[in-house]
């Protein structure tokens, strides 16, 4: 039962490179928090600081009601699953699982019971007498999860645990881990999780909340739905969602109507955008997700006209790559709504869904279309 609190956490390396810029984050008891970001955003460093594998150069980390800054990793009440499994190669699976408890000098019968219970949960009983090198990737990862589970830690830390697995196995392990988390929560065991990944699909599907990081700073912390629908800045907007949100450079003018000039075209918006704007003009990025663009009927006004450069058929949907002057857009259309004969001379007219349009300040990247009444 523990909540994890991070206050103004900083990491400066000996060569004075600042990796983490004073981040603060609260992870509630039993919450599944995902740290996500592109490589080099210091998400792993943050996780390793929570684990105690990296020294903390500023700020504090609190697990439950203890400040753990100066505690050894083993005393923090955390357990960690590593990307490369990090199983002890010379020990059988059984000893790998029991190692932590053995170090704590727990009585033998207790260790045996705990090992059996964990092996049962993760369905690794038949593997107990194997060496790590005799395991497949998925099996090894399950043992690594088991090694974390057996200690009944306050906080579970996962460092990109699925990135060494193939796509199919990754999907099944994803479900397995979330199931496990739900089960621990139901059983009233401590189940606070911090999970690091660079894969936004993993983040969106697994996290209760997601913390998006970039260059050692937190960009936004929110639940997946909020993150997708109300990104606070252009970075989050671009990072979450697949394919990426289209971000088009343009100029915003608010006088009477809302007008956004993109290259040589102008889009006008009504109150559904105007009502949530908190600026009156300037250089902006217009953000529209590929799923929120539709092909215009021939008599519709206020559409963006572009040139289809190529088309990818994905089965249930079709990806259209559209060039408007030097802006490249991706449009996702459900297959049944895509009729090649609608596109004449590779010209296409697109209409964005007004309620799903975002406008970002081009300089700061801040979303200026998030005002309260939206």
């Amino acid at each position, binding site marked *: 039962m523990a909540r994890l609190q991070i206050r103004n956490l900083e990491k400066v390396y000996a060569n004075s490179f600042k990796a983490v810029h004073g981040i603060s984050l609260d992870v509630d008891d039993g919450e599944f928090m995902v740290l996500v970001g592109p490589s080099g955003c210091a998400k792993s460093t943050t996780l390793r600081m929570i684990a105690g594998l990296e020294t903390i150069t500023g700020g504090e980390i609190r697990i439950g009601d203890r400040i753990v800054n100066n505690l050894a990793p083993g005393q923090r009440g955390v357990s960690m699953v590593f990307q490369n499994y990090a199983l*002890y190669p010379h020990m059988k699976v059984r000893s790998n699982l029991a190692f932590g408890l053995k170090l704590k000098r727990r009585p033998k019968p207790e260790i045996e019971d705990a090992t059996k219970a964990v092996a049962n949960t993760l369905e690794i009983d038949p593997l107990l007498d194997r060496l790590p090198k005799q395991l497949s990737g998925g099996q090894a990862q399950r043992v690594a999860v088991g090694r974390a589970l057996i200690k009944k830690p306050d906080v579970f830390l996962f460092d990109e645990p699925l990135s060494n697995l193939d796509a199919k196995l990754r999907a099944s392990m994803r479900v397995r881990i979330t199931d496990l988390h739900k089960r621990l929560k139901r059983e009233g065991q401590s189940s606070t999780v911090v999970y690091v990944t660079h894969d936004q699909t993993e983040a969106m599907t697994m996290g209760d909340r997601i913390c998006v990081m970039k260059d050692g700073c937190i960009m936004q912390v929110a639940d997946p739905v909020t993150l997708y629908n109300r990104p606070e800045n252009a970075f989050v907007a671009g990072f979450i969602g697949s394919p990426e949100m289209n971000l088009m450079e343009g100029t915003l003018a608010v006088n009477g109507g809302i007008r956004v000039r993109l290259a040589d075209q102008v889009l006008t918006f009504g109150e559904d955008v105007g009502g949530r704007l908190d600026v009156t003009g300037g250089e902006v990025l217009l953000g529209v997700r590929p799923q929120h663009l539709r092909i215009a009927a021939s008599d519709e006004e206020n559409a963006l006209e572009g040139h289809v450069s190529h088309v990818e058929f994905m089965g249930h949907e079709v990806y259209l790559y559209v060039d408007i002057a030097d802006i490249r857009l991706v449009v996702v259309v459900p297959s049944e709504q895509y009729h090649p004969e609608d596109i004449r001379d590779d010209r296409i007219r697109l209409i964005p869904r007004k309620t799903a349009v975002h406008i970002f300040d081009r300089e700061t990247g801040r979303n200026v279309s998030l005002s309260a009444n939206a």
Partner: protein
Amino acid sequence: MAEQITVRTTPELESARTLAEGRRMHAISSAVRYALLAGVGFLMLYPLVWLIGASFKTNTEIFANPGFIPSEPTLNGYIQGWKTSTPYTFATFFWNTFLIILPKTIGTAISCAAVAYGFARFEFPGKRILFATLIATLLLPNVVTRIPQYLLFRDLGWLDTFLPLWVPSAFAGDAFFVFMLIQFLRAIPRDMEEAARVDGANTLQTLIYIVVPMLAPALISVCLFQFMWTMNDFLGPLIYLSSVDKYPVSLALKLSIDTTEAFQWNRILAMSVLALVPALTVFFLAQKYFIEGISTGGVKG
């Protein structure tokens, strides 16, 4: 008709012929290669084979008969050689060697593993300078340090004891082994050690339970090298040991040359063969690990 058949089969025949020719060429080249290898191998092995053969000859036959198969095999060399011309048998000398090798090998393994772990895994002030010093001692010729070392051990009152022969090694005095282990450790990812720390192991427990088992192949090589080099070390015992009852095998072999006017070569050779046995036995027992240790470590390059 016959012509037709010939026409039809010529390409097949030809391809079969080239195939057979290729196979024959391959066989010849392998034969030549193996013959050459076997020849050179035999050349290398010949002194050893001759040594073993000669140890069963009588003293007169050794110089009379150039072949290595004794005409009248005798164990005389072994029996007489074992007794030696001193009050001690070779059992004493083997025991002395053992008393030097055992603490030296164990001490080397423990101390070098600890020092290498420190250098490979921790940041501490002065690490670079200390490491440079370590490597510098590696490059220092042994001869240079002989006299200062002798004076040091004399002042400690360690002359004519086994201490000067093993104590320096038991405190990671052999920079080569430390270096070899550091290189080996660098190739091992740190994840396992970090996992152990998260599991609650302290530094020493991590070293003992995680690092040492992973280092095992390299440690076995270290022990083996130390074993063989100590077994063969002549100069060290020669300098520091003066009483015959403390002589190790290497010195005792020379003893039989010194004390008799006419050398009893058969005895010397017989004892040489015996002196080879421990090193060879240990080597063949540990061969698998030994090769793993030097090939995955940094020694190769």
